[in-house]
């Protein structure tokens, strides 16, 4: 770890390294000549291909292109827009390997920006990783820092099946600039500094899918999250320490496959599980983690801080609805009580 990159630079560097090594990798999606202009300038339009606003066609096409030998990276703009093209993911990309008796794989990366915190409304700020991870046959990764962002991109590209790669807009500066500030200096965002920029390896290696990292050790309580939520947990853990509470933080990195082993090992030490999930609360990641520890036979105290409703457009209201440090600390104290 000798150099520092931004979250966005890390993804691009890893992707460029992979594209240089593997001519089967192509990028396609709306506006990619502009959004991926550095890769477009280097690899040309044959490898970085702008598409019409036809998500169901180009995502559906990418599934079959992957089956036929290409390794497409499909840029979906926002994860919310997957709604338009969900059939390609739900009924095709995720199913082909199983339907073919394991004889045919879909090595596809679907890349999308996710998450809120910049006042763009509930049709542009969702997380949806739980909704996606619900589908068997799909991998879903959510990096929280530049090193993982690059490593998980390589892992996604090397994986034999479909991977949804979600980059949070508070971490990827170009998305925040494009959709949030638009070049204004009159707006501020709560960007986790350690997530937006950080040390990365000189040569990229894949970070394994389904492998969580322990971001902070703790004896009293285990907090689990992905993406920006990891940083909110770390901020809360810092404050909790001052109150004499030792809170650990696990970064799942991938929602599917899920690293059950690390989760169970850590929670069995503390006896308390607090899930912080920017995705919707009901029927999602937070409930799944509770099921995992129950199935393992652990007797734990459990709490969750998630998004319960449609994300409001108004910044002040949005801040209350998305998981924040105060809500995490309150819930942690409740679990300790």
């Amino acid at each position, binding site marked *: 770890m000798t150099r520092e990159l931004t979250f966005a630079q890390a993804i691009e560097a890893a992707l*460029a390294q992979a*594209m*240089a*090594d593997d001519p089967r990798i192509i990028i396609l999606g*709306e*506006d990619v*000549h*502009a959004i991926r*202009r*550095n*890769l*477009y*300038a*280097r*690899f*040309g*339009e*044959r*490898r970085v291909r*702008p*598409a*019409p*606003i*036809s*998500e*169901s*066609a180009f995502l559906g096409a990418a599934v079959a292109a992957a089956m036929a030998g290409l390794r497409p990276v499909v840029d979906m703009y926002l994860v*919310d*827009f997957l*709604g*338009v093209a969900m059939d390609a993911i739900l009924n095709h990309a995720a199913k082909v390997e199983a339907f073919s008796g394991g004889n045919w794989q879909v090595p596809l990366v679907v890349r999308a920006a996710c998450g809120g915190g*910049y*006042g*763009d*409304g*509930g*049709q*542009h700020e969702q997380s949806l990783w739980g909704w996606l991870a619900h589908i068997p046959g799909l991998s879903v990764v959510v990096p929280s820092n530049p090193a993982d962002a690059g490593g998980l991109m390589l892992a996604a590209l090397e994986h034999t099946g479909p991977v949804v790669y979600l980059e949070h807009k508070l971490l990827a500066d170009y998305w925040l600039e*494009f*959709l*949030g*500030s*638009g*070049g*204004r200096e*009159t*707006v501020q965002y709560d960007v986790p500094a350690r997530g937006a920029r950080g040390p990365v390896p000189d040569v990229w290696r894949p970070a394994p899918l389904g492998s969580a990292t322990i971001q902070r050790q703790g004896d009293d309580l285990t907090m689990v999250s992905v993406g920006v939520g990891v940083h909110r947990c770390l901020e809360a853990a810092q404050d909790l320490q001052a109150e004499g509470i030792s809170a650990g933080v696990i970064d799942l990195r991938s929602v599917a496959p899920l690293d059950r082993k690390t989760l169970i090992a850590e929670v069995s030490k503390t006896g308390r599980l607090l899930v912080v999930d920017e995705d919707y609360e009901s029927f999602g990641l937070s409930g799944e983690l509770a099921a995992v520890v129950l199935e393992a036979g652990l007797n734990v105290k459990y709490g969750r801080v998630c998004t319960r409703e*449609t994300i*409001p*457009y*108004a*910044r*002040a*209201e949005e801040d209350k609805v998305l998981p924040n440090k105060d809500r995490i600390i309150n819930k942690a104290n409740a679990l300790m009580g």
Partner: protein
Amino acid sequence: MLRSRLFEKAVQDLWDQGKISGEMHLGMGEEAIAAGVVCQMQSGDAMALDHRGTPPLIMRGVDPVLLLREFLGRPDGLCKGMGGHMHLFVPQELAASSGIVGASGPAGVGFALAAQYLRPGNLAVAFFGEGAVNQGMMMESLNLSVAWNLPVIFVCKDNGWAITTPSPQVTGGNLAQRVEGFGMPVTHVDGSDVEAVWQSARTAMQRARDGGGPTFLLARCMHVEGHFLGDPLLRIGRSPWHEIPAMAGALLRSMARIKGASLRDRIQGARSILDMILGSNRDSLARKFDPILTSRQKLQEQVELPELENEVRQEVEALVATALGTL
């Protein structure tokens, strides 16, 4: 039209000041299209709006103060600060918007379906851009509206840009012929000419009310502020010495890396990035498509324009002050 333009200029100022968050897609440049269609709508007619819903809603008579408070994210806004400018809903006017490109197609069809059952003689209008006509749901909606003979007017605001991609580069064939292939009449109209829009819309709306089925209005227009406020292409055009150095370093470094496309392809790529920037700049300067300027020229000999414009300006200033609570 002028009220809408000045209102959106005020929105632009508040966005610049950081009082409005996120993206802001203005309808500046689309006013003549909205006016020519919306002023002929009747009680019980419905509107399916895209992410540029402000001009049609103002012209439909929705209180601009409520709109502005919504954009400011206030609890006393049109949708209590929950929706923002891309998600505006006015049940009394059967007006609903969406930030998903193409979604106004099925919504327009659905509003028309309800009219066919519940409000004979009423119709639905769907507003969208030419980029949306490449969406599956839009093409399916065109077909459905013909198959079910629905009273819906598809109003395509063609500015030539699909977000930041020139539409012709990602569109096969000719849009009008494509739509005609569904068995629907297409009317071409200059979207900066409100009279022409009014005439075309009048025929189409009468046809729909009489049970004659859908019509597609293809109206050429321009966007004064690009795709949205802070559009990177316009920013580069407007302050190149600030924007280009920030972008060029990474671009040139990436272009110079070994392994990649041939030199010819790389130069071709750089050229199309340059064309994209210059093209968008030319578009923003295409003043002949600005409906406000066009209308001014037409009207100046017939009415006391300065007086009228002053009146509208004062009206908008007052409503902005009311919305901000500074009155």
